[in-house]
């Protein structure tokens, strides 16, 4: 891994300064963290800025439908064992937000960057990453993002011939298809509970046979590569077969998978799994996700789930019945305006939990839960939902803007 301390050109430095000023104005005006608007101004002044800002960094790109913000955070923590890290930790993951984040990292050695799926290929070209981590691909905001398999194809074409080490989930056929155009791939058996976007072979369209955890196309033979890293129960298995126990504070199987991928990324920079994992244990919440907040005498755990695969992983980590569950769904711009995806979520997994539904689209949820044969209450507000729940721990699962609403209400 080379280290470069080449200074920014005067023009790039001017762009960074202008971007910072715009971000400051945006913050003063109360328009969020300002990171996206700052980056947008900077990009307008100097389109090559992204590449130049990254020029002195060892860059890791992280992309996926689910888990990219958390994994970015875990990798950043792990790499801090080796040097200073700059990261877009708040999830501003399009080129403007990435530029903004990198402009704050002049002294850093590593850039750990979450990238929106649609921009991965372009950002990878701009920043010459050392490592690209690919976790999963599944249906998400279909009215905006286009189609899942097309995205895998886009990744595949964008990564072809890339000198980066691609660290990819061997259990997601779409990710394997995307990564297998790269020359240098490290396969990680990270699991993928959601399977409904990959029954059809990404290579030939044949039907995938999926006995147990394996998968293979019955027609062309495209199949699961042999992983060198694996999540096995509560352990990370490294390439030597050594098991490293995972004791994250973050809950759930999906986060163990994220930690496994993160350990593989850290190893690519010479940081041992033990050191990497121990640093990950410090993470208790990521941009509010998994935070437990006390509000109206209840301990509410805030869980973000944006799409069917995310809801499925979330159901597997919540406390068992009779833990009360509050579900909140919106369909504002950032969520995608189509709520059809609710029907791809298996809500029967919530049987036995007292359920309250809130959010802009609580009536969509009500019909969905009625059809699933569940008991539920429709509430006008979080406060009303809480009043009807017993004191104690409550699991609140929300999609993107509904989650931000929850955080605002509880003051998180």
């Amino acid at each position, binding site marked *: 891994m080379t280290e470069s301390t080449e200074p920014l050109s005067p023009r790039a430095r001017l762009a960074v300064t202008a971007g910072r000023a715009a971000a400051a104005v945006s913050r003063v005006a109360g328009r969020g963290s300002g990171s996206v608007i700052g980056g947008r101004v900077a990009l307008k002044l100097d389109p090559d800025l992204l590449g130049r800002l990254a020029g002195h960094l060892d860059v890791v790109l992280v992309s996926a439908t689910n888990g990219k913000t958390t994994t970015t955070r875990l990798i950043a923590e792990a790499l801090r064992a080796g040097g200073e890290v700059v990261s877009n930790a708040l999830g501003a993951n399009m080129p403007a937000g990435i530029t903004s984040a990198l402009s704050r990292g002049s002294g850093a050695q590593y850039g750990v960057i979450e990238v929106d799926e649609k921009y991965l290929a372009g950002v990878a070209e701009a920043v010459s990453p050392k490592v690209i981590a690919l976790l999963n691909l599944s249906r998400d905001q*279909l009215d905006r993002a286009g189609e899942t398999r097309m995205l895998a194809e886009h990744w595949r074409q964008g990564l072809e011939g890339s000198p980066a080490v691609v660290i990819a989930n061997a259990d997601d056929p779409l990710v394997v298809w995307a990564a297998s155009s790269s020359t240098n791939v490290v396969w990680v058996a990270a699991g993928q509970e959601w399977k409904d976007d990959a029954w*059809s072979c990404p290579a030939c*369209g044949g*039907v995938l046979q999926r006995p147990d955890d394996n998968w293979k196309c019955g027609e062309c033979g495209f199949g699961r590569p042999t992983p060198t890293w694996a999540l096995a129960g509560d352990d990370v298995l490294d390439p030597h077969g050594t098991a490293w126990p995972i004791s994250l504070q973050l809950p759930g199987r999906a986060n163990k998978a994220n930690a496994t991928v993160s350990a593989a990324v850290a190893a690519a920079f010479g940081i041992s799994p033990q050191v990497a994992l121990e640093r990950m244990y410090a993470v208790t919440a990521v941009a509010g996700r998994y935070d437990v907040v006390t509000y109206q005498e209840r301990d509410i755990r805030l869980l973000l789930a944006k799409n069917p695969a995310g809801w499925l992983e979330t159901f597997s980590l919540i406390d068992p019945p009779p833990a009360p569950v509050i579900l909140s769904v919106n369909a504002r711009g950032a969520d995608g305006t*189509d709520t*059809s*995806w*609710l*029907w791809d979520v298996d809500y029967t997994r919530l049987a036995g939990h007292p359920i309250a539904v809130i959010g802009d689209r609580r009536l969509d949820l009500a019909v969905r839960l009625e059809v699933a044969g569940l008991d539920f209450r429709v509430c006008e507000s979080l406060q009303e939902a809480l009043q009807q729940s017993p004191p104690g721990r409550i699991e609140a699962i929300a999609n993107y803007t509904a989650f931000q609403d929850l955080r605002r209400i509880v003051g998180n």
Partner: protein
Amino acid sequence: MSESSLRVVWVYPDLLSTYGDQGNVLVVERRARRRGLTVDRVDVRSDERVPTSGDIYLIGGGEDRPQRLATERLRRDGGLERAAGNGAIIFTVCAGYQIVGNEFINDLGEREPGLGLLDVASTRGTEDRCVGDVIADIDERLGLPQLTGFENHQGITHLGPGVRPLARLRMGRGNGTGDGTEGAWQETVFGTYMHGPVLARNPQLADLLLKLALDVNALPPIDDRWYEALRAERMAAAVQPG
């Protein structure tokens, strides 16, 4: 319908189940069970034979390549055409709608023959995708309340003389031909571009399929409180966006 139970067949969920269209299957199943019917739900993957003895067949939307693959496999299988010949109810959405027509333009830009169960032919639009809420008055012969749905497609479907439009648009692009039509139906075969899923947004349409399959004029009423609340909200939101 077979004597013991209602057979609901979901065709090719491995290829045609984007956009939550499996909701249509869930709604039909639920509404039948609430009337005390026994339901035998059969999910047919695209490497399996399509049964010919189903009562209701549902086909959802899908991406462009899976749509072609599904069509090739359905043509080769022949089961769905035989089921239609037996008078089965076939309800199709989006890609499924195009597949049961006479032809459509596939992902390779070629004309792909469909199953010919609906006298329609589809092409691909050159404009942006049609994305948004749909409100439409259903064909008066079907005698149902206004339809509401969510469309997300680029297809243009021309109706032949053998079909009637499923509905007339109040809002949305529907068949995309500019003539104000949405979907098509003939005999017991229905096609629509509406997701939502459409049967969750329009439970009376789900009941129509059940009535046709059971060959009855009426079904016992069930509690439609949440469906009605959702419909009212969506209708109001579509008229006054935001």
